[in-house]
């Protein structure tokens, strides 16, 4: 009897999910076995999958995405954490400012923000190279090398997510009762110890959870690549989703796009499960 009731409660969410998410997913899966631009269609079986796995561009995009992963997780884990821990020590007003300042960029139009960053790293007139020249360093063609281009885009993307994470971390931190922290202080602990023994263990489940979301999201970075590098110097900054967009949408090859999306799910699910295993071991 209990079990039936559960399904009853799942119904509203379930209906929407099945109709508007699951059904399109199944349609997409079916589509991946065809080559189609919706005007002419041809059943090709697994050819789209084999093409994808042997295509140098697609494989390059997987490699690129892993680069992005590394960059965004490094930046996206430590920086928000540091900011939240610092803001925790100060007043509500300070925290409000921090929350606002970091969150607001994510509310602005991606196009405008991308254009601004594009100028900052412009070769001849950008702010970055100007600062370098003041310091006596040679200018760098920021958008012309894979590592720097991916680095900048990761920066922009983390910039957009950071506000959200900082708000979350602060929310968790504020659940710590004041007495606990105060008694630790009285016992002679300094800030470092408070951080490592009390606060960080409290946040760590959330940090790991957010890392999972970050992994999923880095493979899906699309808008900034479209606006800034079009896949980058010789296709070295394209993520998997950007590659799907290029091959599937610009050329109207929807079968290919669907097959590559399925491959993407397999890859990322694999990464997510691997991450879970690692966590369980620790």
């Amino acid at each position: 009897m209990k079990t039936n009731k559960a399904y009853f409660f799942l119904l509203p969410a379930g209906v929407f999910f099945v109709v508007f998410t699951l059904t399109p997913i199944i349609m997409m899966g079916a589509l991946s076995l065809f080559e189609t631009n919706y005007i002419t269609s041809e059943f090709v079986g697994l050819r789209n999958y084999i093409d994808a796995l042997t295509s140098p561009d697609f494989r390059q995009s997987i490699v690129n995405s892993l680069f992005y992963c590394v960059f965004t997780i490094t930046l996206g884990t430590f920086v928000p954490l540091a900011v939240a821990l610092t803001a925790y020590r100060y007043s509500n007003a300070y925290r409000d400012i921090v929350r606002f300042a970091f969150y607001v960029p994510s509310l602005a139009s991606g196009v405008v923000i991308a254009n601004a960053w594009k100028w900052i790293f412009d070769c001849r007139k950008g702010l970055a190279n100007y600062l370098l020249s003041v310091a006596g360093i040679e200018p760098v063609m920021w958008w012309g090398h894979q590592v720097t281009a991916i680095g900048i885009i990761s920066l922009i993307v983390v910039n957009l997510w950071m506000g959200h994470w900082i708000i979350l971390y602060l929310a968790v931190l504020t659940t710590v009762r004041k007495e606990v922290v105060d008694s630790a202080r009285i016992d002679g602990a300094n800030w470092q110890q408070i951080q490592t023994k009390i606060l960080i263990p409290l946040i760590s489940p959330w940090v790991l959870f957010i890392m999972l979301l970050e992994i999923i999201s880095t493979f899906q970075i699309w808008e900034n690549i479209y606006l800034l590098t079009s896949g980058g110097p010789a296709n070295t900054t394209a993520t998997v989703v950007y590659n799907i967009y290029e091959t599937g949408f610009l050329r109207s090859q929807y079968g290919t796009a669907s097959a590559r999306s399925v491959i993407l799910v397999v890859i990322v699910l694999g990464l997510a499960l691997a991450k879970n295993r690692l966590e369980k071991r620790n």
Partner: protein
Amino acid sequence: MKYLIFALILILLFPLYWMIIGSIQPSAGVMKLPPNWIPRNITLVNFAYIVKETMIFRWTFNTIMLNTISLCIQLFCLVTAGYAFAAYKFVGKQVIYWIFVASLIIPWQGLLVSRYILMRHLYLLNTWFAIIALNAFAPISFVFIRNYFEKIPTSMIDSARIDGAREIRILFQIILPQCKPILGYLALHSYLTAFQDFFWPMLVLNDKRLFTLPLGIVHFLKTFTSTHGLLMHQQLLGYELAGGVLLLLPAIIIFVIFRKTFRQQFLAGGIKA
């Protein structure tokens, strides 16, 4: 450390500063590299043009209205599904959870055309419901608050059941009040992000009176050159930035008004009994 953060904030807010000072100058003040740090020729002509030529007030109203309806349905679905996961053991719990996670991975671009076909056959094209339906159950919000629901001690629920309370009553009278902070957070977040999503509305809405604000502004910018000729292209940048400011403004206003919501402890270490 405190000052490092201020420096970081300055860098990260720079693009917004650039956008604001660009929108109040006539176009080329923007194009100059390096830009004028202090704006010259301050003028509101970019904003005036957009207000005159487009229906932005209607679009802003549309966006808020659309999001409110979306939100009500979304919260309803989230709370009921969350309760199902928290209060029951049932077959397929883990599987369903992982299906939700997997659905996050699929890029929305891949599902675009399939969803469009679906909407067509459900006669939902060119209606708001096409947009609402997609936001109604967001797996990411669910995955996010599932943790929250799991921390509710089942003892509380069991004791209520033993007392003979009906399930729905448990849900509404015991669980729901405890969830207010996080629901408040999700609500706020949904409004703030409603001012960015334009791709799907662009696909399904034909009638300009139904547009949301981001869609309306993108549409105005993109049809500008085709409508006004190539030689007027340089005015476009000013309008882009003004459009950006107009998109940001409602979101900032909402954020400032409801900032206390973010101060709440909406991520519980535990729930106060």
